[in-house]
Structure formats: C-alpha cells, structure tokens
C-alpha cells in the first residue's frame, strides 16, 4: 500500500499518450484546399501533370504543392479563392470524358506524418456543404417496370401477327384483351414462358378474352431494390461530374438516399443536377407539315405520335425509338463547328451504334428528330396528405435531315449552352431509374462553417481552462493532476476520432466540451474520498490507495448510465446528433482511463512511497 511507481504502468501511460498525441497531431496542421484530378478511363500520368501546370501558368495561379496520390493528382493551394479559380482553369484544359476534376481538402501535415494518420474529417456544419435526404419515387419505379412488360407483350403480339388486341396497364394491373380464345391461350403460354415475375389470371367479359397479370411481390421487391441501387450509382456519377470530392451517398431505410456534398455552395444547381431526369431520344419523323397539322385535330397515324417543338408547333414522330439515352455512353458539350450554336456530342455504345447505323442507312434523305425528355415530380399537400404527381415533358429540340450514315459519334444541336452542358453531364452519368424528391435539406454556408469552428474551439478551450483553474484552486496539486488527465483526455478523444476517421461536427465539439466538465467527476469522487480518509485519520499512503479503490465502483456505475444515454442517442439520432453521441461515448471511455489510471500513475510518481504528513489536496 505504498503506492510506489510501477514501471509497466508508467510505460503503458507513456505509450498511450505518445500514440494519442501522434494520431491527434495531424489536426494541428489541419487541411489545405486542393484540386483533385482523377482518371475516368484514362491514366493520370505525367502528361496530365504537364497540362495542369500549363493551365495554371496560363491563368497566373500558383500551386503550393503537387502530390501524386494513388493514381490521383492533388494540387494544393494557399486559399480557397485560388483553389476555385484553379479548378475552372484545370477543368477546361482536360477532356471531361477522360478526367474528373474536383475540389478537395487534403491533410497539410508533412509527408512522414501523413503516413501515420489523417486529421479528423470535418462535418458539413463546420466545413460548409449540403446534406440532402432524397426519397425515391417507388410508385414510378413500379410503373415503369409495368411499362416494360406492356412493351414486351405488344412486341410479342405483333410478332405473332395477332390483330385486334388491346394491351395496357392501369392501377398496378397489366391486361391484354384478345378477340379469340385460342390466341389468348397461346399468348398466355408465351408470356408466362418469358417471365417468372408476373402472377397471371384469365377472364372473359363482353365478348373479349383477357389475360391479366400483376407484378409478384418478390418482383416488386426486386424492382424497388434495384431502383434504389441504380439511383445511388447514378447519383454518385453525377456528383463526380459536379466535381465534389468525398461525397457521401448512402441508402437510408428502404426508400431514401442520403447525399452529403462537402464544400458545395451552389445548392440550386446541385438540386437541379441531382434530381434531373433529362435524357434524349432519337426518332424518325413521320409525314410532313400537312399531316402534322391534321394530327392536331386527332388524326394521328397508328405508327406515329404527336410531339411538339420548342416553339409549340406540332410534329409527328415514329413510335419506334432509334436510340434512347441509356445507349449513350459518353457525351460532351461544345459549339457546332458550322453554326457556332451550342451542341452536345454523343457517343453511342455498340448496340446503339449498330441500330443507328441500320436506321440511318435506310433513311438517308429523311428527317430525324431529337426529343428532349424530362420527368418532373411535383409534390403537393392535399388535405394534409402528400400527393406526388409525375409529369413527363417531351420536347423536340431539333429536326435534321439524315445526310449520311451515322454510327458511334454524332452531335445534336437545338439546346441552350447551359442546357447542353447539363445534358451532356447527365448523359455521361446515366439516368435515374426512378425520380427522386428532396425531403430534407441542410445547407451550411462557408462563412457559418468558419464561425462554427472558431466558436466551437474557443468555447472548448475556455471551458477546459476554467475547469483546470478551478480544480487547481480547489484541490491544489491534485487538482492540477486532474487537469493534466483532462488535457490527455481531450488529446485522446481527438486521436480516437482521427483513427476512426469519424466526422467532427459542432454538436460533436459540444460533446467534447461536455465531457471535459463531466470527466473530472471521476477525479472529484476520488479526491473527496481521499480527503475523507485523511479526515478520518488514515495515513497518507493508505488514504490515496483507499480513495482510488473505494471510488471505483461508483465511477463505473455513474459512467455506465451516461454511456447508455449516449448509445441510445447514437442509435436513434441522425446526422449532427450522432456526432454528439460519438464524442460523448468516446469521451466517457477515454476519461475512465485518464482519470483513474492516468492520474494514479502521476500521483504515485509524485507522492508514492514517501513518508508524508499531509497531501496538497
């Protein structure tokens, strides 16, 4: 019971403190704004570095450092303003089909320290950025699946040359009406052979023979699952196109997707691009101005549909699509060489190119139309209920005579320049499988982010200092020992957060501040016990020992309850609240180590094994 210094305890404490300090150190250096260049298909090699250097010199911008980082090129800058201008300069110097150029924040630590660890990542509320919660419109996903089956059925019926059928889907049910029972039964076999996802039924009514079918529950489930998966992929691609680095795109629940875009300031554009459903379709033109005018009075040929040009004038297009947006694998925007108007340059995939080649070969001299399609989702409140309305806007943006056989690569004009740029981005990134709707947005501007960091750290530092001064005044040397344990605790919280690559948020800082106030509780309990023992006449060494021993179970009990509350918070909380719960949990655990073990090692080192009459407590 002489509290002598035990070597392994000292070594353990030293090792933990040293490791903690090393892991927390990158936070001291912080992060620098950078432009990140990564390859899409192409390699980021020295030629890219040369191009980047050229672009920067031309723009009169200076990089503070250039790093080669696992196939990415990172160009660091002194401030955000230079970073923004450099991004634009670099982006215009590189082909968007080959490279993505994004803004990033990278560790400003020296190279040796970067090998050890990264700084904590800052949450959107500290760094500025956008958080979106998007809901996938599942009704629309199911609807388009049914639409696909209707198209399949129609194709098969046409191939079998059965006349007088009517195929449609309504209220989640597919139905096909036949004139003849034999035809119906033959097609039922054909339909049922092809797909296993439908539950079939037959009926007779009013002289017609019907096949009705519903999407099976398993198939609907699969449809929903794939809708959300594909939307996540598409959103990721689009975000890459927007040049946002370290985005978070995650599924939440069954129908929602969380999107976090650090550093994004133009939220209106982000919303437009993420939610956009714009795509292109290529169709042959049917008839001429006379037929088009007649079509307005309802006189539409069976193989055609009435469309409108942007100026509102009618035009008839074939029901058969030549190529859809899905078959476009690359796109870029620029100016048409001849007319100088904005143009989208499109690259088709193999199947699309073959089809385009076949159709244009047969139709040289005939006009072809480009249709710009946008699926808009409007959400309205009606009698307290959310009502979703899907509207499909289809506009013919250009009609041009086929002069030559087209295949892989061609261009489309007729759009505004921003529209052309956005459309080429959307075509590169792929279409959303089902429309999405933003149900929650949290945006923090860069100025508020900076204020939050400054105020958060100031309040943490002042709080810590106040506690140390108070403890030093009240418990004298022992109070200062508790203060030292507290400082070690804060370093360790930062080390654990950095090691876990957890995100620090403003509530997270509040959690650290709160832990600072509460973590001394363990020491207060111990010191009060030691005082009691001393008052009761116990000798100094015995009092220290008894104080630590007797307080232990109380400390454990008290911390477990706070831990329970913190874990519940973590489990149920969202976003920023989670940040508070994480730092609170980590703080409680590390404080048990520093306040009990850490302070004991220091106390033993200072007072252990000595013959003392009194203690500075």
């Amino acid at each position: 019971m002489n509290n002598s210094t035990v070597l392994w305890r000292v070594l353990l404490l030293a090792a933990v403190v040293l490791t903690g300090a090393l892991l927390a150190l990158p936070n001291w250096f912080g992060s620098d704004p950078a432009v990140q260049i990564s390859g899409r298909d192409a390699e980021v090699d020295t030629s890219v570095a040369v191009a980047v250097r050229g672009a920067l010199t031309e723009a009169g911008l200076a990089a503070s450092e250039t790093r080669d980082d696992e196939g990415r090129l990172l160009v660091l800058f002194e401030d955000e303003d230079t970073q923004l201008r450099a991004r634009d300069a670099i982006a215009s110097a590189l082909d968007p089909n080959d490279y993505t150029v994004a803004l990033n924040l990278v560790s400003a630590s020296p190279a040796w320290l970067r090998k050890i660890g990264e700084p904590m990542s800052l949450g959107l509320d500290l760094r500025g950025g956008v958080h979106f919660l998007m809901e996938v419109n599942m009704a629309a996903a199911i609807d388009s699946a049914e639409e696909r089956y209707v198209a399949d059925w129609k194709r098969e019926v046409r191939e079998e040359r059965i006349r007088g059928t009517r195929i449609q889907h309504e209220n989640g049910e597919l139905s096909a009406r036949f004139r003849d029972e034999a035809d119906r039964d033959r097609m039922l076999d054909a339909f049922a052979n092809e797909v296993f996802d439908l539950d079939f039924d037959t009926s007779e009514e009013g002289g017609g023979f019907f096949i009705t079918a519903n999407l099976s529950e398993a198939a609907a489930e699969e449809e929903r699952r794939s809708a959300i998966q594909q939307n996540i992929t598409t959103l990721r691609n689009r975000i890459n196109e927007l040049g946002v680095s370290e985005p978070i795109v995650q599924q939440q629940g069954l129908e929602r997707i969380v999107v976090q875009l650090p550093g994004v300031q133009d939220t209106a554009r982000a919303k437009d691009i993420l939610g956009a459903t714009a795509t292109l379709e290529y169709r042959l033109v049917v008839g001429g101005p006379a037929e088009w005018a007649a079509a307005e009075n309802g006189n539409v040929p069976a193989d055609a549909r009435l469309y409108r040009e942007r100026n509102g004038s009618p035009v008839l297009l074939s029901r058969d699509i030549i190529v859809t947006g899905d078959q476009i694998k690359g796109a870029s925007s620029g100016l048409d060489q001849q007319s100088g108007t904005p143009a989208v340059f499109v690259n088709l995939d193999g199947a699309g190119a073959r089809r385009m080649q076949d159709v244009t070969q047969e139709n040289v001299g005939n006009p072809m139309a480009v249709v710009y399609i946008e699926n808009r989702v409007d959400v309205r409140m009606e009698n307290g209920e959310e009502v979703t309305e899907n509207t499909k806007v289809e506009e013919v943006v250009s009609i041009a005579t086929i002069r030559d056989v087209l295949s892989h690569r061609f261009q489309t004009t007729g759009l505004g320049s921003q529209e052309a740029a956005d459309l080429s981005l959307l075509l590169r990134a792929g279409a959303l499988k089902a429309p999405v709707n933003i149900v929650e947005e949290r945006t923090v501007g860069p100025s508020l982010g900076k204020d939050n960091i400054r105020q958060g750290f100031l309040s943490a530092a002042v709080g810590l200092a106040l506690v140390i001064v108070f403890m030093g005044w009240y418990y004298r040397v022992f109070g200062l020992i508790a203060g030292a344990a507290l400082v070690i605790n804060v370093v360790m919280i930062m080390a654990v957060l950095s090691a876990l690559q957890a995100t620090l948020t403003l509530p997270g800082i509040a959690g650290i501040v709160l832990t600072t106030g509460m973590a001394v509780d363990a020491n207060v309990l111990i010191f009060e016990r030691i005082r009691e023992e001393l008052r009761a006449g116990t000798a100094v060494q015995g009092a220290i020992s008894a104080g630590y021993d007797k307080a232990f179970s109380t400390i454990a009990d008290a911390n477990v309850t706070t831990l329970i509350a913190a874990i519940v918070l973590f489990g149920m909380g969202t976003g920023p609240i989670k940040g508070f719960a994480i730092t609170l949990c980590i703080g409680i655990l590390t404080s048990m180590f520093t306040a009990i073990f850490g302070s004991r090692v220091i106390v033993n080192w200072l007072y252990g094994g000595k013959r003392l009459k009194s203690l500075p407590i």
Partner: protein
Amino acid sequence: MRTLISEGGFDFMGRRTFAYVVSGVLLSVAILAILLRGLNFGVDFTGGYTIEVGYQSAPDLDVVRDTLAAAELPDAVVQTFGTSTDVLIRMAPGAEQSNDAKVSDDVLAALATTSDEPIDMRRVEFVGPQVGEELRETGGLAVLFALGAIVVYIWFRFEKKFSVGSVAALVHDVVITIGFFALFQIEFDLTVLAAILAVIGYSLNDTIVVFDRIRENFLGMRRGTPAEIMNASINQTLMRTVVTSGTTLLVLLSLFFLGGAIIHGFALALLIGVVVGTYSSIFVASLAVLMLGITREDMMPVEKEGAELDSIP
C-alpha cells in the same frame, strides 16, 4: 483543504417541506406551461424552412418581409439571429408550392435581387412534413427508450426502490427542463432533444453517486434510522456533487456564451438540466426512496460483500 460549504450534518431529510414546495411549484409550472403553451417546435419537428442569411449592415426587417411577400412567399417569420446583421427566416411547409426543396432557392434569389449589397447564405434547413413527423416520433421514442434502458440497469445494479427513486428524479428533471422551454417559448429542435437525453444521463450520474453511498452506509453503519443514514450519505457526497456540477456548469457557460447562436438551445437545456439535476439528486431521489420505505433488509440480497461487512465486529 479548501471547502465551498461548511461540512457537517445538514438535515436534508428533515427539510422535506422545502423539497415538496420547490419541486411542487416547479413541476406544476412546467406541466401547465407544456399543456397550455405547448412547445415551440423547430423545423426539425414541424417540417418547414429555416433560412439564415448574413447582411453586411443591419437590414430593415420590414423590407425583408415585404420582399418575401412580393415574391409570393408569404407567412414568413423574419427575425434577427445572434447579431443584428444576421436574419433568420422561418416558413411553414408549403401547401401550394409545387417543388418544396426549391422554395429556399426562391427566397435567396428574391432577397438577392432587392438588396444592394451581396447577401451571404449562412444556412438553409428544409424538412419535409413527413420527415418532421418521423423525427418527432423517433425523438419521443429515444427519450422513452433511454429511460427504460436506464431503469433496467439500475434495477439490475441496485434495488427496485432505488430504481423507482432514480426514475422519479429523472422524470422530475426532464419535465422541468422541457417546461422551461415551453414557458419561455424557446425553440425546441433536434439539438435540444439531444441535450435532454444528455440531461437524463447526467441527472442519473449524480443520483447514482448518492445512492451508491446510501447503499454503502446502510451496510456499513450499524446504527441509525434510514433517514439518518440518508442524511449522512448526502452530506458525505455533497462536496462532490457541488464540485462536479460546478465544473460542468463552467464548461456549459463557456459553450452558452462563446459557442455561437446555433448551440444556444443545446447549452441552455443542459444548464437547466444540470442545475435541476443537482437539486433533485440531493432532495428528490433520496426522498422518493425514503417515502417508498427503504429498510436495511432491502439492501441485503443485492451484493455479497454485505455478508463480509456484517461479520466485522
């Protein structure tokens, strides 16, 4: 040795009338405020928009209101936030708007066109009505769940009467803290809810330290009525209670005054919770246990060390 208050046998259990009156008044005011005035829920729970913009010089709020009304964005609550140059605009979720998330863009665009100086977008929060409803549900569940989990832990670790006593203290603290927000109509958002959960953890922390000592004394002190033992226990832990609350209040005051306007509600809820929690761990929790008729025998089966202690002469 420095002490903040003179040590000694303060008769806490004898001052029940004081506790009854204080708690009775605080609880009635809190419950009345919650029932009559209700909570001023933030957009997190009601759904709607919060938009914070920064001007270079203090703007005329009426002009801001007129601008929004002219842009057909009516029913906006416009007020300053933190400083006179920061303006907070709150709007209920749209009934008419066709695309909800775009409304905030419209607000910012409308403000930008009518202002001579550049406007700094500081914060936009939009919560759809359905998300708000869900947050309200999970929030309420979280509080109940935390209470439940803690009751189970105390029951397991202590004894039924203690568990009831600690929950009485907890409910007392939570109701009074929430009542304060209702009484002064301070905005109740997600961070305040987080603070309430932290108050639950803190209040319990305090209560447990006292209970731990009560249990120890029941087993260790051979003489004394339950009331005397409780008094002794509270007095022995009083300094610790005061010092720990003091350090926690110090950091919370730092957070309240220096942490910025966004964290105000959070810091305030904790400040109230800690003050009330400290009071309740001294008066309410122990008093509740005493009223439930705790006896030495209640302690016996809980822990084995009781047997050892009894054999000491």
